[in-house]
């Protein structure tokens, strides 16, 4: 198992955001977490990447316990997190953003090569590499955020609502690229409000409700589940 989250609890002050979440990601897996606002999706990702820390429970990555490590150490182990709201460095250029994604690496040739790969996924970034991220559209900023995460050469990529606020065409483009990235061997955990898109892309799904896992299973199975259809697919 690449990532194993067992029974984590996370509190913000005295608000319990996660009340015992468990999930597992196999090598090469594509997992999605769906759920309504405030269900704890972002908190789950933030706890895996070390921005938040659980008050109880364990997180194991590649056989090592990581729930107490700080975010900068966890990146080095091979987990990259594309946070909610993209959070690109707006005063820096596109290439500077991408190179910061490779902050933990020294292999110049490898960095060059991965930069090329990012530009292959997102040709638009190549055209605009010397432009400041502030001047990019929402969709382009999302591409910068994903590209930046790829530059750390992750084994596991966490994505928090990459489709938020984007036009359907761009969403489709990004969805296609996530599929490619996964096929190249990067495991993915995708958080989405757009449950239909997420369940189409992923192999496994977890449905989060008020800080707990309400349902889990094959994505195709969840798509046929009555509760999921009513609550998240609006059918």
């Amino acid at each position, binding site marked *: 198992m690449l990532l194993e989250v067992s029974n984590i609890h996370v509190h913000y002050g005295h608000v319990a955001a996660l009340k015992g979440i468990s999930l597992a990601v196999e090598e090469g897996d594509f997992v999605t977490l769906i759920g309504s606002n405030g269900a704890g999706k972002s908190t789950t990702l933030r706890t895996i990447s070390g921005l938040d820390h659980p008050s109880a429970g364990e997180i194991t990555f590649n056989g090592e316990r990581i729930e107490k490590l700080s975010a900068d150490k966890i990146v*080095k182990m091979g987990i990259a997190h594309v*946070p909610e709201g993209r959070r690109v460095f707006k*005063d820096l250029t596109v290439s500077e953003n991408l*190179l910061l*994604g490779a*902050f*933990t690496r020294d292999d110049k040739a490898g960095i060059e090569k991965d930069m090329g790969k990012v530009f292959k996924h997102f040709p638009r970034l190549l055209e605009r590499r010397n432009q400041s991220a502030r001047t990019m559209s929402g969709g382009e900023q999302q591409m910068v955020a994903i590209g930046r995460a790829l530059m750390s050469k992750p084994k596991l990529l966490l994505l928090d609502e990459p489709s938020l606020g984007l036009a359907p065409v761009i969403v489709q483009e990004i969805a296609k690229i996530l599929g490619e990235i996964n096929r190249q061997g990067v495991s993915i955990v995708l958080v989405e409000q757009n449950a239909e898109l997420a369940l189409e892309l992923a192999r496994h799904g977890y449905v989060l409700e008020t800080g707990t896992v309400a349902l889990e299973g094959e994505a195709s199975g969840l798509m046929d589940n009555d509760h999921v259809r009513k609550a998240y697919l609006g059918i």
Partner: protein
Amino acid sequence: MELILQSIVNGLIQGGFFALFAVGLVLIFGVMSVVNFAHGELVMIGAYTIWLLHAQNGLAFIPAIGVAIIVVTIIGLLMERFLFRPTRDDPLAGLICSIGVLFILQVVATLIGGDGPSKQVPPPFHGTMVVFDSLRIPYQRIFSLVVSIVALSTLWYFLTRTKLGWALRAVALDREAAALQGININRISMIAIGVGGALAGLAGALMAPLTNINPHMGHNVIITAFIVTIVGGVGSLSGAVIAAVLYALFHTFVTVYFGGTLATICGLILMVVVLIVKPTGIMGVRVSE
């Protein structure tokens, strides 16, 4: 006419000093979100180091500048490690700690130099460059201006051309997103306060032969630094440099024609006006979302 030219030159030199300490304040605020009220005292310690080593004990001026930079940088690093890091989640606590450091450093200066009259450091560079008959600039001031420009250019190069410089700006823009790139926030905070401290030490050392040195000289420095950073746009380094030069010219002219106290009062009024009319400052950029 002569007076105007002379004032412009003096204003530019003054602007170099202002920029050196204002930029440090901006850097520390940007990266660590603390307002370092002790920044003026860091400059003061830089000036005292020159007085003690160069004027009192005969160490040559340039090595003494090096020592001043090292001493003030170390004070800055200690402040980060033992005061600002433990209080990181509480900006008010950081601010109060910095006020504590302000008083401690004033007392230290008084212990070292006594509380008698202000100290003077005889200018180590003699002579005056005669540009033309009515414009004469002492070499001491030329030296200060050149060193300020070199220091600020080096900082600019570091921040815009090196990976560590980008990392520093990234932390100032979004600390969490920076951590997600593998950037160690503690290490970047040390670099920010180290650079800010070094520049403050340098400013104090360069000012030493041109000013009165006493334990309270930091007041004027911090007032100036606040005016400059607010006019320049809190968090904007280039704004701080531009505002430093403009404000120094303004301050020099008002001082020449109306006196120094009035110049500072005008500066404070200018700051308040900017806060009301354009709170983002002349450069209009924010440091963090």
